């Protein structure tokens, strides 16, 4: 694994995320996928409001700052205007599943040819760690100080499963994790390939970490990600239009980290 993908903009490294933040790993996986497909020079990368905005100068690719929750329609606009572009909408779970959830649903329904990446860290991180649709049952946040109570606050949302439930033909839907960067990179690569082959929408959720707002040390951060989060949010491909999935490839994917 290269320490820095070629599509990364080196002058802006080290990046701006907190130490231990998962965003950097998601973007590493994305950089690897962009390198493999050699698409940085025709990519338009949209960042939402949220910690995703700290990636405004992350890649050697044109980047647009959108407003909170609207990265999907902004990237759809760019893609419809210039179909040869590769459109990537990068956002947090607040942007993707709370304030911008209608765009996720409508873009999927229209099967827009873009890649949507939703970074699930179970909270609104940029605003200081409030409850998000993805906050786990019993998880304490700034607005659920006694732990999320499903009676009043509902159950945590499984976004990819929701999208998969009505994904049209040609859609690609997966959930990866920053604890398996290679596999996440493969999912993102497939999401991008799906767009390049003009098949349909791609939605990839990445389970990620936020030690700052979780107030966890390195060990507990990783434990929360690999145990609690992964138990409730299983990692894997949910919908895939790729026919070439041989058994061997599937096995490969299972073992790659």
């Amino acid at each position: 694994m290269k320490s820095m993908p070629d599509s990364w903009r080196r002058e802006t490294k080290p990046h701006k995320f907190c130490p231990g933040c998962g965003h950097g790993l998601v973007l590493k996986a994305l950089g690897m996928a962009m390198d493999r497909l050699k698409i940085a020079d025709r990519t338009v990368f949209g960042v939402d409001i949220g910690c995703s905005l700290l990636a405004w100068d992350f890649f050697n690719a044109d980047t647009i700052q959108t407003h909170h929750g609207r990265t999907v329609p902004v990237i759809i606009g760019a893609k419809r205007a210039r179909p040869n572009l590769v459109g990537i909408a990068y956002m947090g779970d607040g942007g993707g599943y709370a304030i911008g959830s209608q765009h996720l649903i409508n873009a999927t329904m229209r099967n827009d040819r873009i890649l949507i990446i939703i970074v699930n860290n179970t909270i609104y991180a940029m605003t200081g760690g409030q409850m998000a649709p993805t906050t786990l049952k019993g998880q304490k946040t700034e607005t659920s100080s006694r732990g999320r109570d499903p009676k009043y606050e509902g159950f945590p949302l499984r976004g990819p499963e929701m999208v998969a439930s009505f994904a049209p033909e040609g859609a690609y839907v997966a959930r990866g994790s920053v604890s398996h960067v290679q596999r996440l990179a493969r999912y993102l690569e497939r999401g991008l390939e799906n767009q390049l082959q003009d098949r349909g929408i791609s939605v990839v959720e990445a389970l990620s970490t936020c030690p700052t707002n979780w107030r966890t040390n390195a060990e507990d951060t990783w434990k929360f990600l690999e145990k609690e989060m992964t138990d409730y949010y299983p990692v894997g491909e949910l919908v895939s239009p790729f026919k070439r999935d041989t058994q061997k490839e599937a096995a490969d994917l299972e073992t790659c980290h």
Partner: protein
Amino acid sequence: MVISNKTIAAIGTDAVSEAMRQINPDVVAAYPITPQTAIVETFSQMVADGLVKTHFVAVESEHSAMSAAIGAASSGARVMTCTSSQGLAYMWELLYIASGLRLPIVMPNVNRSLSAPINIHCDHGDSMGARDTGWIQLFSENGQEAYDNTIQAARIAEHPDILLPAMVLMDGFIISHSIDRVDILEDEVVSKFVGEYKPAFSLLDAENPVSIGTFDGLYGYFFEFKRQQEEAMVNAFKVIKDVGKEFGEISGRPYDLFETVGMEDAEYAIIVLGSACGTVRHQVEEMRSRGIKIGMIKLRVFRPFPAKELAEVLSGLKAVAVFDRSDTFAGHLGGPVFLEVRSSLYDLPKRPLIVNYVYGLGGRDLSIELIDKAVGELAEIASSGQVKQLVNYLGLRE
């Protein structure tokens, strides 16, 4: 009689949360946004700790926050929410619906600039954009006033002659995140002051079923409804004054539509609102101690706009400088406060000269030096009788 329970050191958002706790609304629906977030967080903690009887709804956006507030208020509840900047902008269509339905929702808005480019710091572009939505707008100079205004807003909004939603405005970071001395009233005093809310109509009243906000066609009463909203704003002048006076009786801090400094003998004056009033007042008092005949008007109420009263106070002046922390992008017509003040002066037989200073966009600091610069120019206008540049940008890098 002044009953001051305790004096605390609090950041502005905590002062507002404290007022919300004492008002004890039935429903609060909110979504976090910097720099308002601390209000949501502190208040949701109060709910979790059982300090209020409020139902708190952690909705998925500001659009939903105001929609939920409208639903709850239509059902006869006392309702609050709070926001900032993009959040207020995202509430847009609902702001009109809340006022059109005459729902007395109270909303602290922590002033922050609007994108793009993105900026989280203070200016008044967010609430000034909402100036025609039919909401009452009260500006605060510091945390104390944010607390006091929040309590008064409930009374004003719910007054039967008004029944309009009210926004309490406080400058992002400068007030919201600065620690200030705040006198807090006794809980019982506040709850007696705001009283019980008894809506005349509400949903879920099985004996008297009502339809709310329905379509009544081209030949319906839409026009009359709008005229009544305007009438309510006119009524608000008196109610805001009365409530401000009554609040003075329980707190020792009376409030009016605006406050003046040195206007009895001033030859020229500055009009300003929000946290900048503190800096401007400091400088105006310093200049007055040197015999300079300057005055200041601190505007508290922007909606309704106290045009008549302001014109009276300004009538004898040679020149007036209006400070605006937002712009109207109208082609050098000036900021929103300037437009209102200028129009208020139109009917005076002898109008003072007027000049506009747009300052502090995106949180840019208003320094003493900048105020001195503006006052120097104002003195020049007063003595020469000429305004060289109508709209000026104070502190702009050029």
